[in-house]
């Protein structure tokens, strides 16, 4: 365990000792992995000392910037869960593990874990978020879609740290929603999770983005063909039904496992998509 004095100090240490050294923030995933014997880092670099410094949420020049060490319960106290455009964050938080884990788990860690159960990744996909990575050589901004390449694999160097999550402010007549379907929704990962972003103009779908926990790979992704189909059409149940019955199955490949079959997952994806779109619509109109 290495206790850095500052973020620069942590970056220098990581530069010298990565990949033997791994950063630890909340620790709700890495400690479990170490105990299961899946990974064996020689040194952990403790980032939790910077939690007060790096857990902000702010608006800068039409962008929303979230510090990577913002905990889930910390996000609950910011404007993200009050602004109707970002109510998706409230949905994620309400379904995010048990209350004890919320105080520890960080949004940066959720991205770093990069599994299909990373609920914030699914939501941030529909907001077209970008991630700022820092290292001793400087900083760079990568779109979240390009950053996560495979399950537990990020397109980042071992000496880089996830520093900030950035996304543009959504227009006024838009909203987000997030849905998780499972029998025990909070404690474990969902069978199906779905996030939607919807922008309506006089009943016409101006812009729509739909993300699922899995579309084709083993990581969260967007159903882009379905989005294309929906864009410019009138918002009605018939159109949505047509989209999820005819377009969504062409691009979604679900896998069966001991928890649910692929067919069931696909069926539930359709239902979740419909419900999440309806929820986003009702939020645009001022409901919840």
């Amino acid at each position: 365990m290495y206790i850095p004095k500052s973020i620069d100090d942590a970056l220098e240490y990581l530069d010298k000792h990565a990949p033997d050294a791994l950063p630890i923030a909340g620790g709700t995933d890495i400690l479990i992995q170490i105990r299961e014997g899946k990974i064996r880092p020689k040194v952990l670099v403790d980032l939790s000392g910077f939690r007060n410094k790096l857990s902000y949420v702010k608006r800068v020049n039409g962008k929303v910037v979230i510090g990577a060490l913002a905990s889930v319960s910390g996000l609950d106290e910011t404007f993200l869960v009050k602004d109707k455009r970002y109510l998706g964050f409230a949905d994620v938080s309400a379904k995010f593990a048990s209350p004890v884990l919320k105080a520890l788990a960080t949004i940066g860690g959720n991205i770093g874990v990069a599994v299909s159960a990373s609920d914030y990744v699914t939501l941030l996909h529909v907001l077209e978020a970008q991630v700022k990575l820092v290292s001793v050589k400087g900083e760079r901004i990568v779109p979240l879609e390009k950053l996560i390449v495979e399950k537990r694999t990020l397109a980042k160097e071992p000496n880089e740290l996830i520093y900030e999550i950035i996304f543009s402010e959504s227009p006024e007549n838009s909203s987000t929603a997030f849905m998780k379907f499972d029998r025990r929704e909070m404690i474990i990962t969902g069978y199906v999770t779905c996030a939607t972003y919807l922008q309506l103009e006089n009943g016409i779908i101006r812009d729509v983005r739909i993300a699922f926990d899995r579309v084709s790979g083993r990581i969260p992704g967007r159903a882009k063909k379905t989005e294309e189909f929906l864009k410019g059409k009138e918002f009605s149940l018939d159109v949505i039904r047509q989209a999820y019955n005819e377009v969504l199955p062409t691009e979604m490949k679900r896998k069966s496992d001991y928890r649910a079959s692929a067919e069931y997952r696909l069926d539930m994806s359709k239902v979740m998509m419909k419900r999440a779109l309806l929820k986003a619509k009702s939020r645009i109109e001022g409901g919840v």
Partner: protein
Amino acid sequence: MVQVEEYPEITITLNVNGKDYTVNVKPYERLIDVLRYKLGFLSIKEGCGRGECGSCAIIMDGKLVPSCLVLAIQARGRKILTLEGIAPPGKLHAIQKALLDTYAMQCGFCFPGVIMASYYLLSKNKNPTEDEIKYALSGNLCRCGSYLRFVKAVKLAAEYIRKGQVYFDLKK
């Protein structure tokens, strides 16, 4: 042969229940192990060791966290509250009294976690609704299935606290 590397110990200060303790810890030691075996706070129970059961819940810096998922070093200099610290010695806290009154206990292994979660809830919300109680205790697994009595007990405890009866004598 697995090669075991010897890590040097690090000296840290933990503030547990208002008292400062200075301990030497290995870098890989979890907070639960240090509190239980080095400092003797045996109320903290280890159920699953991966943050699912809530038996090891403590309050650190005013937040409810599972002590099995915090490394002892990460807790350096932070304020920790365990079950031993919620009432003065020889007294029962209203939550403990309410749990006894409602006969919520069967095996009692999950109790320290349940009491800490209820304490955390009641410290923020003096009059919780049934849904709020259920949500606050959703991270605590009880093998005996006393969940409905927990809800009753927390309601009763909230009533005690609103009446101003926070601490009770043990013998009554």
